[in-house]
Each structure stands twice: as structure tokens, then as C-alpha cells.
């Protein structure tokens, strides 16, 4: 079977972003979209270097993955650096509130290039580990070296840095708390579901229904529900529960994370082959020992995969916590939406994406390390 020519298609999209759409935009303030600027106008001859590196990476990608990654990283680095360098001259003679923003072409180019990098690194296991680190190091060097300082996102960041750092920390804490709540609730339920098939059917259906409810609706619906509950049982309010703020965000996020966690426990515990369990029984293992020495270790890869899915889900969903007053990065996103300030939305959204990707990568690494006994 012929595989889809992924790299040429992605490269074409990246070129479209580079050449076909507005690369940068110059605006008198942060709330208007400004006048678009093509990459030729913004980057001058550097466009040729970026396009050349990009196109060159395609044919060498299958056979020389490391070289292809290097070319793509270079294309990305040059494009980012040249964009950063293009901004100060554009701002000369403009009012202090003026900004140089990244345009649609820039974002399309960035996204497709990252996909190309992932695809190029795929054939080599060592590359899959080192490429993200090199990419991070390059981005950090550009950011902390000040090469991107003049772009609007960096300006927005400088204006909001303490607030953003607080929001990031709070977002991580809220996500961790929601995950912990989901673990406390659904791991025992998963165990129960594994033991009792009727419980499994009922719980599976219920948690499946929760997934069907749109997240936004669930977050919203929890507020009046909690209000009614707190009126009926005032003691809960003294225990720290509230109708707005962290309480509804934690409950809603934990409910969503429930299905993957619960399903992972049920499936993981059932992963031990039947004849193996029978052999263990025949050797005189108690059912408690069979659980801990056979079912749990054999289910571990599945538990971890479901934990990873649930964690990433918590990080992403917690963004909606901004709507119910829980704070976190979602609050910044929604503030940006209220102001129609694209940079502020991105300032909230990008860390959510990066955080989710980072946690996903780390947990995948742990999963790969764990099962030494498999092929």
C-alpha cells in the first residue's frame, strides 16, 4: 500500500502560509487588526532562505531524518528571527500603542512546520526524543535573547507577565486538583465496575452520558445546581464549597476525566489473560494477591494511558473554568475574547496547549520506560 505523501502536502501548506497570506500586520493599537504585510515586504530576501530550506527538507526527509529536521528547524528559526527583526523598523514613527502582530500566514506556516518536524522525526526513535528538546532550546534562545521582543505577543506578555504566571500556576493547581478528585472518585468505582458487571453497565452508561453533555453547558448548569444544594445543606458552604469559582470547575472537569479513568481501570484490570489468572489461582494465590501481583502490573500500561488522556483532558477543560470564576489561563482567554484582543487570547491559549503537550510527552516517556518485560 502506498502511504500518503504527507511531507509534500504539508510543505505546500507551509509555502502557502509563507507566500499566500498576510505574514505580519501593523496596527495602531492592540484592539484593531491593522494593515496586512506580505512576507516579502516584512522579511525581504530572508523569505527565499526560509522557502529554500523548507523545500529542501522534503526529498531528504525519508532517508535522512536528522538532516531534514535540521533544515526545518533552521527554516523555523530564520522565519521567527527575521519576523522579530522586521518589527522595530515598521514601528518607527508610529504612536507608542502601535503593534506588529503575526498574521494568518505566519500562524499557518508555524503550525504546518511543527507538523512537518514531527513527521520528519518519526522514523528515528532517538530523534523523536531529541528534536523537541532542540526545538524548545531554539525557541527559548529566540525568546530570551530578545529576538521576538518587538512582536505584539511579546509586548502583551510583558504587560501581563505577573498575571500570566499566576494564572499558569493556578491552572496547573486546578487541573491537578480536578485530576485528584477524579482519581479519588473513579478509581474505586472502576474497581467496583470490574468486579460487578451490572455496576459496569450502569456506570459506563452514566459516564458516557456526561461526555455527551457539551462542556460549556455542564460548567454552566453546575452553578444553579450547586446553588440549590448549598441552600439545602448550608453546612457545605462552611466547608468551602461555592456556587461560583473553583468548586463548579473542579466538579465538571473531574466528571469529564471520569470516563477515561474509569474505563482504563475496568479494561486494565481485565487485561490479564484468563489462563494466567487460573494458573495463579491453581498455585494457591489468594484473589487479593492475584489483583496486586497480576492484574495491577499487567494493567499498568492501560492505567497509565488512561491517566495521560485524563490529565490532558483536565488541563484543556480547566480553561472553561475561566467562565465560572475559577481563574486560571481560561480567565485570560475569556478576558481577551471580551476585549477582542487576539494577542491576549493567544497569551492564555498557547500555555494551555504547551502545558498539555508537555504533560502528554512526559507521561508517554514514563509509559515507554515502564514495561521492561514487553518486547
Amino acid at each position, binding site marked *: 500500500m502506498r502511504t500518503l505523501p504527507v511531507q509534500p502536502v504539508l510543505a505546500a501548506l507551509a509555502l502557502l502560509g509563507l507566500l499566500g497570506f498576510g505574514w505580519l500586520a501593523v496596527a495602531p493599537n492592540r484592539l484593531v487588526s491593522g494593515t496586512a504585510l506580505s512576507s516579502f515586504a516584512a522579511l525581504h530576501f530572508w523569505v527565499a532562505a526560509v522557502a529554500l530550506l523548507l523545500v529542501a527538507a522534503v526529498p531528504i526527509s525519508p532517508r535522512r531524518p536528522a538532516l531534514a529536521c535540521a533544515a526545518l528547524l533552521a527554516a523555523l528559526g530564520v522565519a521567527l528571527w527575521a519576523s522579530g527583526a522586521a518589527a522595530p523598523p515598521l514601528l518607527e514613527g508610529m504612536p507608542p500603542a502601535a503593534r506588529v502582530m503575526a498574521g494568518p500566514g505566519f500562524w499557518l506556516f508555524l503550525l504546518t512546520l511543527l507538523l512537518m518536524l514531527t513527521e520528519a522525526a518519526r522514523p528515528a526513535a532517538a530523534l523523536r526524543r531529541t528534536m523537541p528538546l532542540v526545538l524548545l532550546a531554539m525557541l527559548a534562545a529566540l525568546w530570551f535573547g530578545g529576538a521576538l521582543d518587538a512582536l505584539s505577543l511579546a509586548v502583551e506578555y510583558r504587560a501581563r507577565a505577573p498575571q500570566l504566571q499566576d494564572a499558569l500556576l493556578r491552572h496547573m493547581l486546578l487541573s491537578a486538583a480536578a485530576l485528584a478528585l477524579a482519581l479519588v472518585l473513579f478509581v474505586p468505582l472502576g474497581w467496583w465496575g470490574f468486579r460487578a458487571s451490572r455496576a459496569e453497565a450502569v456506570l459506563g452508561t452514566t459516564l458516557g452520558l456526561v461526555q455527551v453533555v457539551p462542556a460549556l453547558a455542564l460548567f454552566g448548569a453546575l452553578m444553579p445546581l450547586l446553588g440549590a444544594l448549598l441552600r439545602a445543606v448550608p453546612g457545605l458552604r462552611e466547608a468551602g464549597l461555592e456556587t461560583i469559582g473553583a468548586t463548579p470547575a473542579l466538579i465538571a472537569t473531574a466528571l469529564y476525566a471520569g470516563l477515561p479513568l474509569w474505563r482504563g481501570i475496568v479494561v486494565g484490570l481485565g487485561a490479564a*489473560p484468563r*489462563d*494466567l489468572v*487460573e*494458573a*495463579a*489461582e*491453581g*498455585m*494457591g*494465590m*489468594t484473589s487479593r*494477591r492475584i489483583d496486586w*501481583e*497480576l492484574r495491577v*502490573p*499487567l494493567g499498568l500500561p492501560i492505567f497509565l494511558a488512561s491517566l495521560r488522556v485524563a490529565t490532558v483532558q483536565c488541563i484543556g477543560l480547566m480553561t472553561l473554568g475561566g467562565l465560572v470564576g475559577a481563574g486560571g489561563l481560561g480567565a485570560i482567554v475569556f478576558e481577551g475574547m471580551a476585549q477582542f484582543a487576539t494577542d491576549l487570547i493567544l497569551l492564555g491559549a498557547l500555555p494551555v496547549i504547551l502545558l498539555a503537550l508537555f504533560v502528554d510527552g512526559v507521561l508517554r516517556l514514563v509509559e515507554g520506560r515502564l*514495561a*521492561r*518485560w*514487553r*518486547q
Partner: protein
Amino acid sequence: MAAMIRFAGISVNFGDGAGLRDIDLDVPEGALCVLVGTSGAGKSTLMRLVNRLVVPSAGTVTLAGKDIATRDPVELRRGIGYAIQSVGLFPHRTVAENIAIIPALLGWEKRRITERTDALMTMLQLDPALAGRYPHALSGGQAQRVGLARALAADPAVLLMDEPFGAVDPIVRRALRRELAAIHRETGKTILLVTHDAEEALELATLLVVMREGRILAQGSPLELTAMAADPFVRELLGGAGLPLRRLDLLHVRDAVRPGEPEAMAPEIDADASQLDALRLMLEHGATSLVVTEAGSAVGALRFADLDGRGRT
């Protein structure tokens, strides 16, 4: 000898017509009792009664004189070796850890476990380098050996083996069979083995039990069951048209030798050889009699007419 395992009036009802009916069987101490039959005959069910993986609807199973229904199943099972066809090795434990499962359950000291594991690996001709490997790295034959070592680990008086050599090729299978026979001779353990392979059953059994549709059809020594008078189903199962040859394989030249001079130029055969080997030699040389030797000197003659004891009545 006293019965090590006694099944008395056993019925097992699974509710679907399968199961066991009216089973009475005594397995003497030190016997290698082979349960043979077509699939679905109830062999495994009968075996699994002994470690209470199956509970009888009627009747009692006694082990060393004690009704097993009165014993704690966990403690009972730890005292019985158990090896199964799919090997049942724990994939997340090393070879040494797999062998040590029951000793560890019994709370043996670490040093004693290591010594026992090493000894068993030597006994079953497993390369010591395999001790730290995981089961996925083993060949089929090695895995079966580890399974056998694990069953023997706590030195149980009784060993249950369900198609223990089911998943290996014929050559390895034969080698493992010989090793099992040797272990049985050396240790004198009572072994209950389930197989559907008649050749294996005839070679290994000291007590052969033929089962069909949940009942015992015949039991006795392989020689008794291969005799002409046995039930037609039993004959079919144990070899059909090839049965006389399999029977000859069980008989020794020594038992058919008669004193006196053989024909001139007759080929020689050792008294310990099987009568099947004698027949092969006769066919090869077109001879109707052989010189039987013991330690190199002639002790008598074996005639074609004496094969399978037909000469004496």
C-alpha cells in the same frame, strides 16, 4: 500402595450436559496417572477437582487420606504442583521469579529460594543465564521447562499437569517427556497428567485412564489397556490399526526370550530393547528369530511367534 488421590462417587454438573458422572478412581502414591481422551471428555475437569478449581456436585476427593473439601483451598493449592499447557508464566516476572512464586507464597527465606531455583534450573537443563530473562525471550521448550520447574518448586508430593507439552514441536516434546519420566522415577512424586496424545499417554503412564463423555471408560496399566480384549473405543483412541505396534513398544525383549539355540546367522538384540525394535530388526534382516544378548553374551533366542507374548499361555 495407599491411594494418594481418591475420587469417590464424583459427579460434576456444569448444567450444560458436560461435566463428570460416577467417577471412582484411586491414584496410588508414586503413580504417574495419565488421563487420556478426546476433547470434552472431562479430563481437565477431573484433574482440576484435585486443587479445587472445580467443585464436585456429588462425591468426595481425598488427598493423602484427607477429604479436600475440609481443607483451605489456598493452602491446599500451595502444596500441589500445577503446570498447564499455555504455561501460565507471569510475563512481568523473570524466569527465576516465576519459578520462585510458590516458595515466595510459602514465605521461604531468600537464600533457600535462590538455592532451590538454581537447583531446579540445573535439573531441567535451563541455562543459568536465563534466570534474569523475561518469558517473552524464551523458546517454547524453555518456557515449558520453566513451567515444570515452577510446578516442582516447593517440592510438592502431588503434581498436576494439564497438557504440559502441548505447545512445543514433536522433537522437543519427546525430550521433555523423557525428562518427565526421569523426574518421576527419581522423585517418586504422584503425578496426574492430562493429554490427548495416545503415544504420550502409553509412554508415560503407570496408570492409564481413558475417558469419554464425562465417564471413565477403562483404567489400568498401558499393557492391560492395549490387550486385545479392551473396549473398541479405547482401542481406537490408543492407536487403532497401529495399536499392536504401540503395544510391542511397551514390551521388552527380556520378557519373551526363551533359552536355547537360535538359528544360525541370526541378528543380535539386547534384552532391554523393546519388542518393537526386535520386530524392526527381523523385518530388516528377513529373520524370524534373534539372538538375545545381555552385557554382550547370548542368553537365549527370540522368535517371531513369541512377540507380544503369543508364544506362552
